[in-house]
């Protein structure tokens, strides 16, 4: 295996246009991602440490971060489990209406998230179809942190399904059959053969669903109830600052979230890279 040593190593290659495409990539990345994001940091840096801490590290903000990242992690975990199952069903079995199910999976991508939020709220509100049965049993979803998890799970599902699906399809049924004929039980086959093969894709799907959930706003605000210290997510806090024309305060919270998200995603990426090297394929 040849591994590239330098980032910009020049080498005669059969694939042309490295310089051109790399230049365009960098330019686009700068204009679309880097410049807006650095504006956030510049704005934040201008406000001074004390002002920053007052807004971004207030106990209310800390509670909101905790809720945002915690609910996102739970939602992404739920998606990892059910998304894996959905991908499994779509890849391994043929059944009537498969295309419809497959299209349904993508729906959370296309739906305006506010619509999802309103629909979920109507469903889980104390007088809604599901809420009517759940609330008397003490399970309150709408206007509680649990509702946030439900909404975030909804918007994150396609990420896991769509990242795991091709890898699972590529794995082929014959490896499973080989494991079975070698005496492995269904569980051993899954744990020792299937799971290690799809784990990197599953981690990617998890990371994407998690990232999406951290940034989600539209669907959550309808179902969360938005009570400070209780069911208020960090993006909402940013909006509140904006509505008070405290732009510096808004960017302070945004910058804090950005750094936290970046560190988490970087950690997941490094973990994947480590695992891929271990598999050496």
């Amino acid at each position, binding site marked *: 295996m040849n591994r590239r040593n330098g980032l910009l190593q020049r080498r005669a290659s059969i694939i042309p246009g490295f310089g051109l495409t790399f230049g365009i990539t960098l330019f686009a990345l700068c204009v679309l991602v880097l410049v807006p994001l650095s504006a956030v940091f510049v704005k934040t840096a201008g406000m001074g440490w004390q002002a920053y801490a007052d807004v971004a590290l207030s106990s209310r903000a800390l509670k909101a971060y905790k809720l945002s990242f915690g609910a996102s992690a739970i939602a992404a975990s739920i998606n990892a489990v059910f998304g894996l199952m959905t991908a499994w069903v779509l890849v391994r079995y043929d059944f009537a209406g498969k295309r419809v199910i497959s299209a349904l999976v993508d729906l959370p991508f296309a739906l305006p998230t506010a619509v999802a939020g309103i629909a979920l709220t109507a469903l889980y509100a104390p007088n809604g179809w599901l809420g009517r049965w759940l609330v008397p049993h003490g399970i309150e979803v709408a206007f509680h942190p649990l509702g946030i998890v439900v909404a975030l799970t909804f918007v994150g599902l396609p990420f896991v399904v769509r990242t795991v699906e091709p890898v699972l399809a590529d794995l*082929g049924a*014959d*490896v499973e*059959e*080989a*494991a*079975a*004929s*070698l*005496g*492995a*039980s269904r569980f*051993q086959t899954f744990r*020792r*053969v299937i799971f*290690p*093969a799809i784990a990197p894709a599953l981690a990617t799907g998890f990371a994407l669903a998690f990232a999406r959930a951290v940034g989600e706003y539209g669907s959550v605000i309808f179902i969360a109830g938005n009570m400070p210290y209780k069911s208020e997510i960090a993006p909402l806090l940013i909006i509140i600052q904006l509505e008070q024309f405290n732009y510096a305060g808004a960017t302070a919270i945004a910058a804090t979230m950005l750094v936290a998200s970046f560190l988490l995603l970087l950690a997941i990426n490094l973990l994947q890279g480590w695992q891929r090297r271990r*598999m*050496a*394929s």
Partner: protein
Amino acid sequence: MTVTATDVVKSFGNFAALNGVSLDARPGEFLALLGPSGSGKTTLLRILAGLDFPDSGRIEIGGEDMSNAAARDRRVGFVFQHYALFRHMTVADNIGFGLTVRPRATRPPRREIARRVSELLDLVQLSHIGGRYPSQLSGGQRQRVALARALAVEPRILLLDEPFGALDAKVRKDLRRWLRSVHDRMGLTSVFVTHDQEEALDLADRVVVMDHGRIEQVDTPEALWDRPASAFVCDFLGGANRIACHVSGGSVDIGGVRLPNSAPACGDGPATAFVRPHEFALAEPGTAGVPVTLRRILRTGARPALETATADGSVLEVIADAADHLAAGAALTLVPLAVRAYPAA
């Protein structure tokens, strides 16, 4: 270990893959299932392995009814056409897999597994690459790893699904002779599927020729070659030229040449004759036989092959002793020396 299949029927939707197939493999035998794609040979093998289940019929392994037993309970080694190795495991871990998934009570200790794996690595001549991953191996090496993995669990029978199908010609030939020697040394009972008649005849003790979910003939390679039971078998074994002929009183008439029929009884009337390329003599135009025009002379083996065409354009291939005196375009007569005639389809 004896393997018996009795009246096995299997269909996929409207497609009948197996129409009542019965078969037995004797202990120590190397059996080939030979047929074109869609003949049901792979389905039969998968049913023997427990990877598919018959709609009706019975499977016995070593006298035990295994018709509904799961694959993991059959103690059958299975080798797949595309190797089906575990990509995230090293070669050694692949081979040891079958031992490490055993229930705790029957699982050998770790050191015993390592010893067994290194023995198998020796057997498949890959001791030096036990630590590599499958993606770093060639096709032939991968298939040897797959074989070692199947042998690690000490299977009662070994089933191979087109094991050499994805390999190039040279590797194929080496590997199949080697496989035969492993089979003999370990005293296995093996069944393998192939669509390559040369491979089947070269390797197997007996060959099962299949077509459209039925068994056409089960015989030793010699008997199969000398006495094909049907036009299909004769055609599938390869190389034979088809010529229209007339059968009367047990003898065959091709272009005025009368010969005894080497095939099992064929009724009087029009029939299809099969003549192998080396079963012709060349004669001057005008003699009794099949008049043809020489199209090309091919040098693919020790003796030249002549591609000839009859007046109606059908191509006949002939192996000649010498072709130096001939040139493309020459008119010839082919005199058949031996012939198998079957009722015209």
